[in-house]
């Protein structure tokens, strides 16, 4: 049963991802990216990670991509670039990347993830819920949590400073 959701969903993700890098117009790429993220959120739900799935939609697709859209529209970027052509350099790089994919896949299979780690024990009902993750976040991982908040503060200040128009 699960497979029927998993394979189509992952296919969708991959197609949208390819769409990001193939499209000439940046707006189209951005929209493809949103599609990929939604697909990924679906995969997260399949993995019983409910909180992460919701956060994915809220933060990534909702905030970050909107920011991207704003900037594209602000700078009025058109796809003034050439198409992604089959230039010699590009072929080389693409094939290199393909080789790496194959190597990694081979290594994955070599480790035998099909064996015991693949077998799941029964998951508790509270797995992946907000309460469970939040519990961990405020006890074991409180320091990274606080540091992440300072990081966001700094990024906010930095972004404001960098993007400010110089007043004459």
């Amino acid at each position, binding site marked *: 049963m699960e497979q029927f959701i998993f394979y189509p969903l992952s296919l969708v993700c991959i197609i949208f991802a390819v769409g990001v890098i193939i499209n000439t117009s940046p707006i189209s790429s951005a929209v493809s990216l949103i599609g990929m993220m939604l697909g990924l959120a679906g995969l997260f739900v399949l993995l019983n990670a409910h909180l992460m799935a919701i956060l994915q939609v809220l933060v990534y697709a909702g905030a970050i991509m909107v920011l991207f859209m704003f900037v594209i529209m602000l700078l009025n970027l058109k796809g003034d670039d050439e198409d992604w052509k089959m230039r010699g350099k590009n072929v080389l*790089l693409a094939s290199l990347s393909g080789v*790496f994919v194959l*190597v*990694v896949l081979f*290594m994955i299979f070599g480790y035998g993830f099909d064996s015991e780690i693949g077998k799941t024990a029964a998951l508790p009902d509270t797995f992946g819920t907000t309460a469970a993750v939040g519990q961990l976040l405020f006890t074991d991982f409180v320091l990274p949590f606080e540091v992440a908040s300072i990081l966001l503060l700094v990024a906010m200040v930095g972004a404001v400073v960098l993007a400010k128009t110089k007043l004459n």
Partner: protein
Amino acid sequence: MLSLTWLVPTFPLIGSIINGFWGLKIGKDNVGKVACGSVLLSFICTVLILFGLIGLPADERIYEQVMFDWIVAGDFAVQWAYQVDPLSMVMMLVITGVGFLIHVFSIGYMKEEYSYYRYFAYLNLFMFAMLILVMGSNFLLMFIGWEGVGCCSYFLIGYYFDKQSACDAATKAFIVNRVGDFAFLLAVMFIFYIFGTIDYTEVFAAAPHKLVYGGETVIIITGFLFLGATGKSAQIPLYTWLPDAMEGPTPVSALIHAATMVTAGVYLVVRCNILFMMAPMTMMAVAFIGGGTALFAATIGMTQWDIKRVLAYSTVSQIGYMFLGCGVGAFTAAIFHLITHAFFKACLFLGSGSVIHGMHHEQDIRKMGGLKKHFPKTYITFLVSTLAIAGIFPLSGFFSKDEILFHSLMDGNIFLWGMGITGALLTAFYMFRLVFITFHGESRVDPHVHPHESPDVMTRPLMILATLAAFGGLLGIPLIHGWHVLHNWLEPVLHIDWQTIVVNSSRMLEEHGHPAHLSHLLHGEEHHDAGTEIALMVLSVGVALTGIIGAYLCYIKYPDLPEKMTDGQWGYEIVKNKYMVDEIYDESIVQPVVKGSRLLWKEADAKAIDGSVNGVAQIIGWCSKQAKQFQSGYVRNYALAMIIGFAILLLVAF
């Protein structure tokens, strides 16, 4: 008394330091007083030490005063120590005595010179170095003195440093000396290698035991020592610096190039007499080189027109006689001639200095003549010294030269004697030629020059030296047994234990399978026939008189005779140009060295070494040029680099 030894070299050193640093401040008079006073104090100490030495019994007359341990390095230990024994005593007396008289003379001679204090500082420094040379108790101290006198000779020859010829002459003297010094140093190192020590007493005591009579070791050691001696004492082949050294002030020529420095080589050979007596081949070489130089220099002296050059070649010739004496084993005779030569040659040089000073620095004897009436005192002293050098009885030169000639016939061979007697003939001839041309005859003096006799401060030393030249012969009266004062005095230093030498050498030779025929050495002192000696004395006086008569004929009676004889003769031209020896040396040795050095400079240094050092820097530059291309500025290149690195990490980790 004997503990005053260390003061003898120290007084001149102090004088040199005072004059060198504060000479300008204390004024000319005080400079002269400091310089002469220090040497006088040295002389007084030397005389006191002499009395102390006489007080000791004859075979114990050796006193060593250690100042401090100088070098202690593993097996090699050298002390700064002075050794006073009969030989060094003789040298010290000559150096300080004659040196003092020359210092006094210099006060008058150098009166109008600039840098008065510099002259006296160097002169005192020279005295210090020379005293170290003769008083040192080991070869290294002698070498220090050796180098020191060479250095001071350079300073003093180049005293008039604004004259190019003086600077060249000083450099030439130093470099030619250096060749000799190199040989000397090799010999000292070899001595250390064989004996493990370089102290005189230890080396000479161990010599009969460690060295084989006539073996290669001792011949090499003595050969190199003699080569060093030829450099310092201006014998063939290293004599070329001495005539040019006449560029220096005349008292310098008197002190350094007549009485003291050039006799250092003779001192060396006499000091190492036991080593030389064990090397018959070297002795033969010494005798032939000495005799040959005596003859060779005498021939050149006959043709020179500069008053100081004649005396310079005469010095070379007379030192040749000293080496001739050493070479046939007559060490006492050599030292005797050294002493008398110091007296009359210093007197001759100072006399010529007086003439030059009075003639306002004219040195060409063709522009002199008839100076007898202008320089009465100088003339008398000059004449006495010339009679001494010619070997006329009963002046000192007769006794010393005659003893050398006698021994060269008896202990040497007829060729050596022949060279000696011919040299004596020529010596008498050219010395009297000098006297007749300069002092007799009609005056050829330039009308602008007004010659005048020198002041007392210059003539008194002349008179003292002339007296010594006249009566110095009393030191070595031959024939009458026991009256040869010098022989008796030097006996302990020159005594050789033939018994031990023969026994040890025979043993060492037989160990190596060579049969030893050394018994002839045990014959002991031969007593020469008195009749032969008297006959030879008469012969040498006759030869000297012949020379004088010849000079009289050529330069007084028939003044045109020399020109007629020599005009156009190619032999005369060659001799006058010193046999072109300087030019030969220049072509064969100096030019190739200069060219080689230039080649090394341009090719090896500038191209190869500088090139490789610069090349290293250029390699680094090239490397960084290649490396900087990574910084292309393209973000995507950086991203690619990151990906590649990441991939390599993956591969390596798994």
